[in-house]
């Protein structure tokens, strides 16, 4: 039985030694320093919090070692479908760290934060142009919050017209956040069955549209990586019944400069700046999920709105029909600086080339893999492709097994088991930043795994063995959750 290579196995708490410290804080320079003289006793901790006591070198070495247990885009190809794991430019980081941005307090008066407000105003205009929408709010913290904002604006719009619409239609191929955000906004979710290639079933849509439907929410290109070609018909059908159409912008990387949601008839779309616009994923966040809308929804935008009056920028709070605020301040500003930097780095031709090359790379991978794995749909794809491991499943090898074997071969895994409508789905999004050489290495690995499934399945079932740990007991973790470290003897 193969064994994972031995490696580092510490938590920061296990490095702790009483009396060791890494901090450097100033001496107290005011006369009264004892908190017991300043605050009533009941407000002071009875016992010190049990926190690590470590040196700075402990901290550096520990977290450097932890980082080495991760795969990142900087070290590995990350073909994670629907997530757009493209290269995150380093200049973005330098710009976000300019003291005038990084060290700026959100409640600095507007006349002392004009540079930040101007950048936000410009980014909103650029995103509006890229999407063909009339207005963009930068406030949502991530895609799911952008969805919530969008659906709440739709709700407010209908209510302002005296219409109490209660349902939102969502295809079965949608990201899980779509139904979750919609339910949070107080709607009941009606799931529509997609056609096999992920296209909207027009007959089914027609059957469900009606005066109780507030919105239809779809992903374009769809989650099988195909452009929904009947899109004009869909948005017209919806509008004829007073239904608003929402575009999940997770797949925006496919369409920059090629087509625009606003021109397709969408009323609302959100952006994931951490996908298309190169802000880093950071192990799960932060992201940024601006939301774009058409004019008729403008009264309902989240407050405050960044406005320009002559040469002055300001936050406009006086919007009586607004859906309100989504986070305490104005948006994930640090991510906005990065996205602004990226758009200015690329320019119009560069942005178009992004999508062209994303589409080219995905189709190249699809072509190279289609003899070895089942395609989920015929014809060319957009920026990502979905293949099925149903052929391998018959040999006892699942999509998850393939994902684990890829880790041993030096690649992060594609998204697995999504979209839900494809059996044993492997969703591959190479992005435009990868070279043909990398794609070839990845495809060679995938083809090798397909061969191993026939000839030596055990090597796949044993994988991964080159990672810091082997396959983990997920069931045990959920049955008896251990969610924090406890000192030995106190467990």
């Amino acid at each position, binding site marked *: 039985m193969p064994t*994972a290579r031995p490696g580092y196995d510490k938590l920061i*708490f296990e490095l702790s030694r009483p009396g060791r*410290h*890494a*901090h450097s804080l100033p001496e107290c*320079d*005011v006369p*009264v320093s004892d908190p017991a003289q300043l605050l009533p006793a009941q*407000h002071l901790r*009875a016992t*010190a919090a*049990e*926190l690590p*006591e*470590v040196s*700075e070198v402990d901290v550096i070495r520990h*977290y*450097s070692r*932890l980082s*080495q247990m991760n795969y*990142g885009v900087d*070290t590995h190809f*990350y073909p994670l479908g629907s997530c757009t794991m493209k290269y995150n430019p380093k200049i973005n*980081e330098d710009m976000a760290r300019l003291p005038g941005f*990084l060290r*700026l*307090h959100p409640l600095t008066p507007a006349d*002392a934060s004009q540079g930040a407000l101007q950048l936000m105003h410009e980014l909103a205009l650029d995103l509006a142009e890229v999407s063909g929408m009339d207005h963009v709010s930068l406030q949502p*913290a991530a895609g*799911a919050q952008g969805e919530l904002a969008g659906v*709440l604006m739709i709700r407010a719009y209908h209510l302002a017209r005296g219409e109490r619409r209660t349902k939102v239609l969502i295809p079965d191929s949608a990201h899980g956040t779509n*139904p*979750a955000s*919609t*339910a*949070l906004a107080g709607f009941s979710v009606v799931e529509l069955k997609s056609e096999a290639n992920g296209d909207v079933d027009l007959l089914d849509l027609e059957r469900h549209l009606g005066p109780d439907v507030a919105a239809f929410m779809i992903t374009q290109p769809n989650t099988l990586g195909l452009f929904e070609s009947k*899109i004009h018909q869909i948005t017209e059908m919806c509008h004829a019944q007073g239904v608003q159409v929402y575009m999940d912008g997770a797949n925006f990387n496919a369409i*920059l400069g*090629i087509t625009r949601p606003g*021109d397709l008839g969408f009323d609302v779309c959100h952006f*994931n700046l951490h996908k298309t616009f190169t802000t880093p994923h950071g*192990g*799960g*966040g932060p992201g940024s999920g601006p939301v774009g809308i058409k004019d008729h929804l403008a009264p309902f935008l989240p407050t405050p709105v960044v406005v320009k009056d002559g040469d002055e920028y300001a936050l406009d709070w006086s919007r009586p029909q607004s859906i309100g605020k*989504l*986070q*305490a*301040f104005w948006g994930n500003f640090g*991510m906005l600086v990065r996205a602004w930097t990226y758009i200015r*780095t690329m320019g119009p031709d560069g942005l178009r*080339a992004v999508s*062209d090359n994303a589409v*080219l790379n995905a189709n190249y991978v699809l*072509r190279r893999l289609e003899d070895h794995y089942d395609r989920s749909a015929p014809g060319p794809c957009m920026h990502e492709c979905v293949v099925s491991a149903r052929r391998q499943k018959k040999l006892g090898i699942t999509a998850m097994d393939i994902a684990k074997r890829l880790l041993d071969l030096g690649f992060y895994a594609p998204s697995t088991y999504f979209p839900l409508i494809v059996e044993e789905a492997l969703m591959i999004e190479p992005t435009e930043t990868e070279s*043909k050489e990398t794609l070839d290495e990845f495809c060679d690995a995938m083809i090798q795994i397909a061969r191993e499934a026939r000839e030596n399945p055990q090597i796949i079932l044993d994988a991964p063995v080159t990672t810091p740990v082997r396959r983990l*007991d997920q069931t045990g973790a*959920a049955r008896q959750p*251990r969610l*924090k*470290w406890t000192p030995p003897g106190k467990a």
Partner: protein
Amino acid sequence: MRYISNTPAQQREMLATIGVGSIEDLLARIPAKARLSRPLNVPAAMAESDLIRHLRRLSAKNANADDFACFLGGGSYDHTIPSPINHLILRGEFFTAYTPYQPEASQGTLRSIFEYQTMMAELTGMDVANASLYDGASSVAEAVLMAHAVTERKAAVISKGVNPLYRQVVETYCEGPAIRLKSAPLAEGVTDLDALRKSVSAQTAAVVVQYPNFFGCLEDVKAAAEIAHAAGALLIVVADPVNLGLLTPPGALGADLVVGEGQGLGVPMSFGGPNLGVFAAKQELVRRMPGRLVGATVDLDGKRGFVLTLQTREQHIRREKATSNICTNVALCALMATIYVSVMGKEGLRKVGELSTAKAHYAAEAFAKIPGVALTFKAPFFKEFALTLPKSPERVVKRLIKDKILAGVPLKTLDRAYKDCLLVAVTEKRTRDDIDAYAAALAAAVA
């Protein structure tokens, strides 16, 4: 083209492999009338050196906390950010990794989140903490939604001592589920407990108080807990963990949920985002929590490892029945906080609290001596306090900016009841000289 790796020759090779003549052929599914027939109207590409020059100029228009003495608070604070944080988070293996859905290739992120959860549970005095939510405001909103789900009640009472920006976010989130929100008034800067007692009922899912509250005052959390629990409601305490190295953890005072803004733990202010939403709960509520959770487990060889767990609460599995719609969180900010707490340690975090409160009290005393200036409230405060000024706070702020002082947050736009007031925050970074200079400038401005 920058960030695009394939050469024109490679592109031709790839098209040949695919069996098409051009990239256009791959876009054939897009109907002609859907196509954009012109280039995007965004500014032309800039060279890196031009871009840097441009953004340096633009950013220089902002009064940043390196060049100005920052006394601004209200949910974002200029606390010390130890140097190791930036160096470590910029390691690409952390920075450019995705959510750790493939745990074998994500043990670094998973371990650091497990450490983060442990630290937050310890600081808040709770049993469990999640892997983070967006910010303090959305954490409060999620806590109210969770209390609504747990108690199956449709109302919540929020103290007016809770940050008004957070209260606005709670209102947004409560719109869909139609949770009725009542606010409990203040008396002398802290929640009026008699009024609170009258405002709770058998319909109340949660009582929400902030500790220290928006005005810096220290609430009687224990009394609020008794009132909430007597009505069968949960007590949600909004607290900033950077203060909890010194202050009593809300878990010890009866909180059922502790939420708040963790930005003070080593996360840059960055004009208000990204921030760090902290969310901690009692053990019995863990399966109703929003957001990701990391748990310890073992691998096939029995070796310790970590995974995302209890995922059946989450949107990618439960869809419209999930406990929250959150997917992306702020893992990297949680990593900053983890490194911060490691560097500060047991002694340092306590010292941050001691220095902040000592300097805040020194400042309050100095400012209140100025004729016409008074502390707005009598209640004990921690590192933040409200001043009532004899002149327009907006104008005073404008005047002090000339002296390179960011004097505080005028409260008029946030709560009209306090239109004469300025909210002042003092962290361990402000020196006695900063405070003395502020006092002199304030005296001149109100004279």
